[in-house]
């Protein structure tokens, strides 16, 4: 049997149909199992804030110690999506981007640049 780490790639289409709490539960349940989650489209700032808050509630001694999360810097709200019409209507695009989330004790960021993220993942 192949030894390794499970990686779940979740499409933007699937994420768009989910509520904030559904997304957070999906991510955390997966990561607590020791899997790596890749979101095609990242979380909004408000969702990130709630993810941090709920992650903290899941941490246990000698068990889950939190998450490692990496994404590129958000694109400028004015330049990503929405266009002029969206901006005229006051619609703000958070410009969320592909995001990788894993268990803190298994995933470590080696290098992070503006356009390149290098991470190392170990099996449990």
């Amino acid at each position, binding site marked *: 049997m192949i030894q390794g780490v499970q990686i779940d790639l979740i499409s933007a289409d699937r994420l768009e149909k989910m509520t904030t709490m559904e997304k957070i539960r999906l991510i955390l349940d997966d990561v607590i199992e020791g899997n790596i989650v890749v979101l095609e489209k990242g979380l*909004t*700032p*408000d969702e*990130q*804030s*709630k993810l*941090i*808050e*709920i*992650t*903290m*509630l899941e*941490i246990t*001694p000698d068990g889950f*110690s*939190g*998450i*490692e*999360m*990496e*994404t590129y*810097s*958000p694109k400028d709200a004015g330049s990503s999506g929405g266009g002029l019409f969206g901006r005229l209507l006051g619609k*703000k695009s*958070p410009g969320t981007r592909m995001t990788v989330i894993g268990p*803190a*004790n298994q995933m470590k*960021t080696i290098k*992070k640049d503006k356009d390149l993220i290098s991470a190392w993942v170990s099996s449990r």
Partner: protein
Amino acid sequence: MNFFIRTRKRLSKYLNAFFKKRQSRIGIYGPPNAGKTTLSNRIVRDWTGDALGPVSEIPHETRRARRKEGVTISNQNGNTVTIDIVDTPGVTTKIDYQEFIEYGMEKDDAIKRAREATEGVAEAMHWLREDIDGVIYMLDSTLDPFTQVNIMLVGIIESRNLPVIIVANKIDLPDASASAIRKAFPQHPVIPVSGLEGNNMEELYEKMLEHFG
């Protein structure tokens, strides 16, 4: 006639009480060990003579948000602002009690500290979403500012349209680089200070008057 005057005064009093704007709550945010409590103590001591909380080299010394109400900052031109200073626990996405054992803590104490620290981070996030009107974002200027937590938190603050000042702390240390922080967050004012030594606090107070006034 007296009746009308009395009624007008009473109405005016009720309207003032109803529309009175409460003091802005300025949250001091940042990753653990950036010097948030040291700076909070410095600000509160400079303007009220009190202090907010204890400091420690072990991360997560502040595990509950602490608020000092009615801190009035002023300058020589007569500009003043009265704010509440909220010192918050350091924000992170991971906490392992083993880290505290490495600082020499007993296992039970380390586990207790880790549990309280997780509650503190959750509390800090809740304050940011619900009760904060402006942010001083603290960074240790001897470290790489380009971390996920910093990018994420600044993004959350921006999405809430909160006025923010970024403080490049620990400029008294030889490896400090405020320019790296300016490069990482060019969209916000960056003020280099040493909360410990009190260096360049005047510039920070001027910026606070401008931003939070």
